[in-house]
């Protein structure tokens, strides 16, 4: 397996300095080239899980192995795209995408590589623009190009389209699907949108909350492009909704209990 997550646990300390389970006993195997969505309600630990694969957050126990190497720190073999495009405002688009390449290859080579990836996200004409001159969707495409330019084995995406409007999001879904088909990257895609996960992924890991656990591992075998299979999508959506309903009720109940106890 390309990515192996074994017996992974994560605890954070709460305000009273007591450990709280955020992720509990996560076991996952992900094959090379798979497009996997991690779906779950807000606060179930999706970002924490993804950050641990990225090497940005250390596990309390358990291990993550990517391409036969144990993850201990961040590395260029795992590119990450965040909800807010974390491109650097003091660099233009070209310089931003070049950032991860600058020590690896000559400037000329790097530029060629960058051009190629800007073309992939359809921003060839914006190489010399600065981030503040771009729309949110364009900024996010720069972030995707930047992550892909270092040719990582895995692309980690944490609600990358969550802050965009509906139209832009739909366009970027199609682009991402196209990029995935072209590059054959393994993609781990965090979202809290059921329809987004069904539209894009081969597999949906449904997570429950408090503590974060894997509720279901669903294979999506609808043919692509999925837009033409509305009925199948709808059916799947209802099934997942049923799974998550209990989780959402749990959150609401807890919040009510919290409010009445105060």
């Amino acid at each position, binding site marked *: 397996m390309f990515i192996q997550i074994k017996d992974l646990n994560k605890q954070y300390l709460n305000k009273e300095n007591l450990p709280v389970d955020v992720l509990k006993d996560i076991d996952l195997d992900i094959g090379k080239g798979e497009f996997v969505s991690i779906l779950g309600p807000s606060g179930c630990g999706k970002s924490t899980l993804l950050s641990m694969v990225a090497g*940005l957050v250390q596990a309390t126990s358990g291990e993550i192995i990517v391409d036969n190497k144990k993850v201990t720190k*961040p590395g260029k073999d795992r590119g*990450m795209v965040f909800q807010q495009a*974390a491109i650097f*405002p*003091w660099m233009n688009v070209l310089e931003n995408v070049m*950032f991860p390449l600058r020590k690896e290859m000559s400037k000329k080579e790097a530029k060629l590589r960058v051009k190629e990836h800007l073309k992939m996200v359809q921003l060839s004409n914006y190489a010399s623009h600065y981030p503040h001159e771009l729309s949110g969707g364009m900024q996010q495409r720069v*972030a995707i190009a930047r992550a892909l330019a270092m040719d990582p084995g895995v692309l980690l995406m944490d609600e990358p389209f969550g802050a965009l409007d509906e139209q832009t999001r739909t366009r970027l879904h199609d682009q991402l699907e196209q990029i995935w088909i072209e590059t054959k990257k393994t993609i781990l895609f965090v979202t809290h949108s059921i329809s987004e996960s069904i539209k894009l992924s081969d597999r949906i890991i449904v997570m429950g909350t408090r503590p974060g656990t894997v509720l279901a591992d669903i294979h999506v075998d609808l043919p692509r492009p999925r837009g033409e299979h509305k009925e199948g999508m709808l059916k799947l959506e209802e099934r997942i909704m049923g799974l998550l309903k209990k989780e959402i009720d749990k959150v609401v109940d807890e919040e009510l209990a919290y409010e009445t106890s105060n």
Partner: protein
Amino acid sequence: MKPAIKRILFFVIVIGLWQLGSKAGLWSEILLPSPVSVFEALVTGIQDKTLIYDLIASFKRLIVGLAIALAIGTSLGILLAKSKTADDTIGSLVLAFQSVPSIVWLPLAIMWFGLGESAIIFVVILGGTFVMTLNVRVGIKNVSPLYIKAARTMGSSGLDLFIKVILPASVPYLVTGSRLAWAFAWRALMAGELLSTGPGLGYTLRYASDFGNMSLVIGVMVIIGVIGAVVDQLIFQRIEKSVIRRWGLDS
């Protein structure tokens, strides 16, 4: 009406009223000379080059002092942002120093360096350093964790992360710090020069006052004010604005 035109009109009216008041003898020329006398004093000062030498001397001290202040301020700010121990100890001292007008250091500076260039430059340095320190410190501490996380996933860490990401990300604070350091240093310089030997704008101001040349006193005050305002608005505020825009902080 454009703000610039409004502003010009305003100054024309103020100076006009001032001139009319002087002409009408509402106040004595000795207490408040008319704009025309001030203008004449300035022209004389420029023609006999005393004001030119003063300007050059003052700017030399300012540039040396400010450059040293920015260098020390930046280094100290980085230290305070990076080391909790330094922040808890030196940090509180910096806050205390920042609340002391730097001119009060002059007696000590004169004891240490004698009454000359070094003493004034010392006071200028103290004027600019601490405000720069505090801004650099806050700037570095406020760098979005998102930039740092993103950079780390792209293989950046340690010194590379600091130089390529953390420092550039805090540029808006560096610019604000420099603008305030300039303002404090300029004030410190004038105060220092008032109390020391020439040439220098502050020195000429006191010299003119000692000889009862009120027109020149006001003339020099006008120069000091105009330089202060022009550098602040035409240079620093412009840079600040464009940086804030590019860094996406104006949302």
